[in-house]
């Protein structure tokens, strides 16, 4: 929202001549012909004005406007005004502004209805104020502009619990560098003192020193490898555990726009990347930085003039690395994408094997897999080609520096400069390779860093997400829950600007069974999501026994509601453990009683392992009806005062439905029950029926009352009856 005073002066000038006070203004990013440009929707106390560019494109007296509304088009949105004179097109906006215009519509309509000035809900930036690129998620930090040093600091901070080992690691790494830089110096001594001056006795000492340096370097490296592996594994183990536990407490809204596979990738793959960086990249970086500095100083000390020649190829090395890196990076990325694609095709091929066979599409799948596989191979060949060219070219560039040193050093030595000996030259050449090495591999380290940082950023995004508030100091615990539920002017949208519940109000008395009815997308399951506080309403509230659920302790709220879903989720445990899930201290006798009440006992005892039968991943070893009855047994054992049945019988056959319905009848007795079902016959025992239409309460009453009304419910019953009659004819035939 833009306050009147914040409107650009030229727009203010346009408005000032027309009315007295700007109530609300919202900027758009599309012009009338939908080109990118500026425009405004402005609500004043007398008119609704649209400005496109720097011209007023429409102005409507407020007493002419009934309401304004959003038209969701494909790829953009449009605001129209419903006036006494028909519908008027006001302006267009791109999808960046969907939440903003949803707010504007609410604010303008509130003002039109009762001259109430409401607040804007959505205040998050859609674009990064620094680089001006859109943010991947509103209000999040701009990934482009997060300082890499900050991420590095956080990565290093992960090693804090193991600081003694990290200190030891640094010490060992430093000593390793020392033993790496000594051999060229020993070479100089052998050439100058042993060969040059004929002190052959010293060869034993120098040879021993050289072997000793190599051995000590080896020991240091071995200790370093052990330490880095240990620290890396520990850090990543801690991180995976933290991520898993953080995910358990995140709000469900976090998961709505994320695929489970993506999150599994973050926990497993991204932490893996981080581990590689901690085990290989970070020590490599430290060693190379130290040896680059130390060797640079040694080169300068031996001969600063020759050091200048050593530096000649350095710009070419740096520029070359960066040029090659630019070539390599997209190839690495494409390789990653192709691997992901190949995994996806393979996963589909395995999961959809039955459908593939049933449709005789084996050859098509083979062709699809081969095509992606070949593309991946092509990318990998390209990557290897570019990477190989890079390495060899860099080696050649470095050899130029060495050739220059040989050329000028030979001139210095033969020119009679006694300060610079043949031994110095050989040591110098030895050091050059140690000097160039880190330069060449900085690009590789950059690669590791990029991978690790992108992984780390995704990991930190999860760690930094605020969890559900289970135990806020203001929350209260009710001594017992009777089950009176009241929905009070509830508004909710999964995506800002696309409201799915639009001002819903009704109440349910304790022990009453309510049937929620409506077409797909009417908002039935959303109500359950709000009742269980999986999502929070935009406005309005839900009360249980007169207390707003946002003030109840979440643990008490959730333990008071038993959920039986359309697709019950079973864990890969035994049947008994699945029934007792959430009621840890239940005795075996109680489990059996619950199974009996759920009409599950009969099929359980017929299984070879009875209650010890493992149900398989997601309960795949059981039929749909068996899974459902175990879920009902779980709810019975849980014994909640409120029960939610979300399409509990929709995916089973008529006989199984009968068993489940019997189980449900036992379960609902004495509990407040909300049942959602497409098969209206399953709601025959409901005390009242609530009919939803487009997120609003359309009808409420008993079966007979609603039939008499001849509204949506009566129509639904009619079409169901027709459908059933049709099915009877078909079955009969």
């Amino acid at each position, binding site marked *: 929202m833009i306050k009147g005073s914040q409107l650009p002066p030229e727009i203010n000038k346009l408005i000032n001549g027309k009315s007295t006070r700007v109530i609300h203004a919202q900027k758009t990013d599309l012009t009338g012909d939908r080109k990118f440009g500026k425009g405004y929707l402005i609500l004043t106390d007398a008119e609704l004005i649209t400005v496109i560019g720097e011209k007023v494109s429409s102005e409507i007296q407020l007493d002419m406007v009934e309401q304004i509304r959003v038209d969701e088009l494909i790829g953009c949105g449009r605001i129209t005004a419903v006036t006494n004179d028909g519908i008027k097109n006001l302006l267009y906006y791109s999808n960046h502004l969907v939440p903003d215009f949803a707010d504007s519509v609410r604010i303008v309509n509130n003002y039109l209805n009762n001259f109430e000035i409401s607040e804007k809900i959505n205040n998050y930036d859609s674009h990064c104020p620094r680089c001006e690129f*859109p943010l991947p998620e509103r209000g999040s930090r701009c990934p482009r502009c997060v300082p890499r040093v900050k991420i590095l600091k956080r990565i290093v901070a992960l090693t804090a619990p193991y600081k003694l080992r990290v200190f030891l690691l640094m010490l060992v790494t430093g000593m390793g560098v020392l033993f790496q830089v000594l051999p060229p110096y020993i070479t100089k001594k052998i050439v100058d003192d042993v060969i040059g001056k004929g002190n052959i006795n010293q060869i034993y000492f120098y040879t021993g020193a050289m072997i000793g340096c190599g051995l000590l370097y080896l020991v240091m490296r071995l200790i370093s490898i052990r330490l880095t592996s240990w620290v890396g594994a520990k850090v990543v183990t801690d991180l995976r555990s933290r991520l898993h536990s953080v995910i358990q407490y995140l709000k469900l809204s976090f998961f709505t726009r994320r695929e489970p596979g993506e999150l599994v990738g973050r926990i497993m793959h991204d932490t893996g990347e981080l581990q590689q960086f901690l085990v290989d990249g970070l020590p490599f970086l430290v060693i190379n930085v130290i040896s680059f500095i130390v060797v640079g100083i040694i080169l300068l000390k031996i001969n600063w003039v020759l050091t200048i020649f050593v530096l000649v190829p350095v710009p070419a090395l740096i520029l070359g690395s960066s040029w090659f890196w630019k070539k390599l990076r997209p190839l690495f990325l494409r390789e990653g994408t192709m691997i992901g694609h190949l995994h*996806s095709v393979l996963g589909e091929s395995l999961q959809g094997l039955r459908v593939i066979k049933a449709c005789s599409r084996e050859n098509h799948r083979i062709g699809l897999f081969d095509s992606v596989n070949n593309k991946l191979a092509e990318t990998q060949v390209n990557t290897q080609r570019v990477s190989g060219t890079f390495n060899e070219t860099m080696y050649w560039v470095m050899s130029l520096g060495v050739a220059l040193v040989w050329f000028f050093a030979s001139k210095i030595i033969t020119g009679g400069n006694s300060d610079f000996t043949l031994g110095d030259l050989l040591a110098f050449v030895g050091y050059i390779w140690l000097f160039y090495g880190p330069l060449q591999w900085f690009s590789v380290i950059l690669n590791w860093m990029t991978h690790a940082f992108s992984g780390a950023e995704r990991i930190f995004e999860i760690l930094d997400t605020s969890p559900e508030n289970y135990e806020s100091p203001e929350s209260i615990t009710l001594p017992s829950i009777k089950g009176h539920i009241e929905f009070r002017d509830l508004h909710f949208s999964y995506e800002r600007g696309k409201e799915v519940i639009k001002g819903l109000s009704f109440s349910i008395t304790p022990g009453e069974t309510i049937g929620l009815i409506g077409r797909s997308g009417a908002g039935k399951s959303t109500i359950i999501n709000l009742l269980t506080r999986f999502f929070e309403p935009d406005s309005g509230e839900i009360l249980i026994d007169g207390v707003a659920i946002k003030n109840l302790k979440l643990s008490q709220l959730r333990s008071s509601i038993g959920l039986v879903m359309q697709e019950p989720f079973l864990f890969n445990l035994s049947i008994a453990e699945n029934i007792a899930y959430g009621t840890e201290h239940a005795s075996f006798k109680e489990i059996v009683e619950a199974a009996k009440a759920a009409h599950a006992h009969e099929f359980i005892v017929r299984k070879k392992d009875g209650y010890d039968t493992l149900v398989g991943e997601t309960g795949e070893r059981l039929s749909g009806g068996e899974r459902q009855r175990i879920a009902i047994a779980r709810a019975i054992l849980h014994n909640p005062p409120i029960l939610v049945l979300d399409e509990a019988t929709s995916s089973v056959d008529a006989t199984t439905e009968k068993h489940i319905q019997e189980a449900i009848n036992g379960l609902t007795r004495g509990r407040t029950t909300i049942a959602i079902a497409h098969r209206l016959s399953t709601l025959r025992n409901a005390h009242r029926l609530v009919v939803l239409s487009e997120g609003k309460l359309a009808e409420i009453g008993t079966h007979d009352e609603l039939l008499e009304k001849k509204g949506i419910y009566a129509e639904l019953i009619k079409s169901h009856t027709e459908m059933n009659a049709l099915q009877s004819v078909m079955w009969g035939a």
Partner: protein
Amino acid sequence: MYNKSVKLYRIHDQVFMKNDGLDDIPVSIVWLRPTTGWGKEVSLIGIHNEVVILDCIDQLDPDSRCIAEEELERNYFYIDILRLIRTDVNLGNRYFEAETDRGKSRFVVKNPYVDIRPTGNDGVIIRDVVGNLFRIKSLSELDNWSRREFEKVN
């Protein structure tokens, strides 16, 4: 030649389909395959149900076709990319800066595997993080620079 049973007219902002002898039906018009079949089949949808499918809007008489074209033009907001100025990858997000038929634009794509889809005739549709739709009508007709920039992030 024309599908005589389908006649469209517009009142204010709403398109109606004539329904001989009965109340005319308010309809919205959508492509059946907006990504891979742009310009092919369209569906005329009434308040609750689809009213008719047309193989092509050329089947309509000129006046109705004109209304259908306007309606489709209004319902779909595709931004045609003329030139890619630069592209970049940062922490897994693909960043595009492009010259389009609607002006210069900067946008971000999260997952190229899902959000960059071939149209089947050398073109691609790119869906950015908020659902804006960008279109490259023909990759081979892009200039070399733009093609290279596209390759960098795809």
